[in-house]
């Protein structure tokens, strides 16, 4: 039995099911933005030579993707630490230096993204950012794998404990973590393609961009589907028993379906097909976000029954959050509407 700490004695602020729903929502949001940089940067590096115009548009979007991706990443981590602190902290402490390293690496990558966006050493800066962010993704996958696999803790602890404390130089980057990174990268190519189709269809009128994006969208989807299919076919059997069949099917077949739509976009580009593709890709992300969170919850559920953890009923603070969210959405809608209107006017 691994030395799993007891649940926090303060108990859950509200029933776990709500916290889980918020965690899924946050993970979905994070995935949408994070995938833009995960595949967007390597795609931009590849396109600088052959399609510099598209690469430039992609890179211009990266600072925003980074800002919102990092920001949205706070949400699932916050609720993960509320639901499963006794799993998450030991897993990251055992890999402490690698987990800590994410912060300086992220700073460097973020700076490189801005350098590329401002036109300084564009190829080199995008390449550095792409490599660092992929590495960060791998470290994340490793941390989340170990969070859900306490049976792996003691092996690392025995190998890295000095005087009873860990030195933190372990990295649990195993096959499963790499396969999940592959799945994420596969979906990410689709997200980038859908983003480009959306930009060409709904952004400022730009015939050149639309012409260049048209053959790229199906191509990116095919690359993404290849990666997704390869990683998925190796990963899915290992978690088949932890996922309801309907969810399994939704997560697996949403990507091929979106690829078919991408093919249609290649034949008949326009607002209709672009819109459908963006919606389909959001479906890919949502079904896979739910599937991933369910798998994690099932894996951790082998060790703890959240139903047994007392609930404090912190509804006052939930009300504060919801009221702020409502007001915030109002202000956000005003900002986005203003930005939408003004960017469409002639400069």
């Amino acid at each position, binding site marked *: 039995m691994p030395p799993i700490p007891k649940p926090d004695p303060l108990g859950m*602020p509200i029933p776990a099911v709500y916290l889980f729903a918020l965690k899924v929502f946050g993970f979905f949001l994070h995935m949408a933005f994070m995938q833009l940089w995960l595949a967007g940067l390597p795609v931009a590096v590849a396109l600088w030579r052959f399609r510099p115009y598209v690469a430039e548009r992609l890179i211009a979007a990266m600072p925003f993707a980074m800002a919102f991706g990092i920001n949205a990443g706070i949400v699932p981590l916050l609720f993960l*630490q509320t639901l499963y602190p006794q799993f998450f902290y030991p897993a990251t402490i055992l890999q402490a230096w690698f987990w800590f390293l994410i912060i300086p690496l992220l700073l460097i990558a973020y700076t490189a993204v801005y350098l590329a966006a401002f036109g300084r050493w564009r190829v080199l800066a995008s390449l550095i950012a792409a490599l660092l962010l992929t590495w960060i993704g791998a470290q994340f996958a490793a941390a989340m794998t170990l969070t859900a696999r306490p049976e792996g803790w003691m092996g690392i602890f025995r190998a890295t404990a000095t005087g009873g*404390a860990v*030195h933190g130089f372990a990295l649990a980057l195993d096959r499963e973590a790499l396969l999940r990174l592959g799945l994420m990268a596969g979906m990410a190519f689709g997200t980038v393609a859908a983003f480009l189709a959306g930009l060409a269809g709904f952004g400022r009128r730009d015939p050149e961009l639309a012409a260049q994006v048209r053959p790229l969208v199906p191509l990116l989807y095919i690359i993404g589907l290849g990666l997704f299919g390869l990683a998925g076919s190796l990963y899915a059997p290992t978690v088949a028993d932890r996922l309801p069949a309907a969810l399994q099917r939704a997560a697996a077949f949403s990507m091929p379906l979106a690829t078919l739509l991408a093919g249609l976009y290649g034949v008949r580009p326009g607002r209709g097909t672009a819109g459908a593709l963006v919606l389909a890709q959001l479906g890919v992300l949502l079904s896979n976000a739910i599937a991933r969170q369910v798998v994690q919850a099932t894996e951790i559920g082998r060790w703890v029954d959240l139903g047994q953890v007392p609930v404090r009923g912190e509804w006052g603070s939930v009300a504060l959050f919801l009221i702020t969210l409502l007001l915030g959405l109002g202000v956000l809608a005003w900002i986005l509407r*203003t930005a939408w209107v003004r960017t469409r006017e002639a400069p």
Partner: protein
Amino acid sequence: MEYPVWVVPFLTAPMLIPLVAIPHVIVAQFAVGGGFLLADGVTWAYRHRRADVLAYLRDLARFFVLLTIVFGAVTGVGIWWTIGLTAPESTSALIHVFVFGWATEWVVFVLEIVSAFAFYYLWDRLRPREHMAMGWVYAASAWLSLVLITGITSFMLTTGRWTPERDFFTAFFNPSFLPQVLIRTGGSLAIAALWIGVHLSLRAPEPLREEMIPRFSRWAMAGMALILIGGLGYFAVLPDHARLNMVRAPLLLIMTALNFGATLIALAAFGLGHLRGGRWINPPEALLMLLIGAVAITSGEFLREGARKPYRIEGYIFSPGVRVAEVPTLQRDGLIAHSPWLQQYLQENLGLPEEALGDPARLPEPQKVQVGEALYNYHCAACHALDGYNGMRPLIQPWTPEIIADAVRHLHRTNPAMPPWLGNEAEREALIAYLVALQKGGP
């Protein structure tokens, strides 16, 4: 004690927190105060139809957005990252009390980012009223973010009437909440004026500097007034042990002096800026003033952290990560009995028999020292590196074995910033054996 411990040589793991937190605070406070200064500057420039001021502010906004969004946001997440690694029990407690406070802060953080981007990237496209409104939305959301985070950080120093049965709002509106909001708001305005002073000295033509420095200095002087009012309130609500720490610990005394000194120098500089405009300031002076401002913030943060000892969360969790309510149980059963990771280490890595864990004092000396070393890592290493920060080896070097034994026996009475001994008698003997061996040059 239920979590594994990460030991960082020379520094101690918790000292990684200020390495991330202090640069973050210096930038994050600029993000808050700078929001007000920029919004005010843009409003003034539009109302007086000053294209030259708007052109300068656009240049400033670019620097501002880059620094605060990239560095401020990543290091902000970084603090959270680091506390989870170095103080998991306390982080878990904070998250379980404040999860929806953090979620609320996330909402205002989204607004902060979106409005900052709109403010800068749509500079030429927004109508003046929209642009001004965008600036003020940014300033308000950045300040709300400060308020929400201050509710959480101030709770760690003054839990007030909170008990585990009480709700979020009792914890949030703790005794030092309001004073700290005032101090941080004031500090934000002051440090923003100093950051902008550097930018002005480097990027603005002299006539513009003449005009802008008094304007920004006024904000900063209002900030200094808030710091003064908040500071008085802060000292009034400090718990007794925190006041005692500030007087007893030489390092905290030095930090107090630095804090007061740097704040006074900054006040004088703002006064001078207000009276004499930009004539007196050039890039090296502006940088020096920013450095002085950074010293004030650093020493203030250090004081806030240091004064809290022996607690991580006042009255609830001690520095080694043990809840106050658990102390009698640990003292009765022993720390090892309640530290599964420590048990695993002693049994599997050192091969000690299970029955020996209950009474390590009866082990042969070399094994007793090994147990003592492990206890040291769980009980002491969060605040004392072996060598380096708060180094144990140099600390006990001049001590005799009797003094070492006495200090460990009367840990809390010898120094009120220390927690009580959190294990049983036999474990205390093992720790003493380790410290004596350490002092003699081993183990």
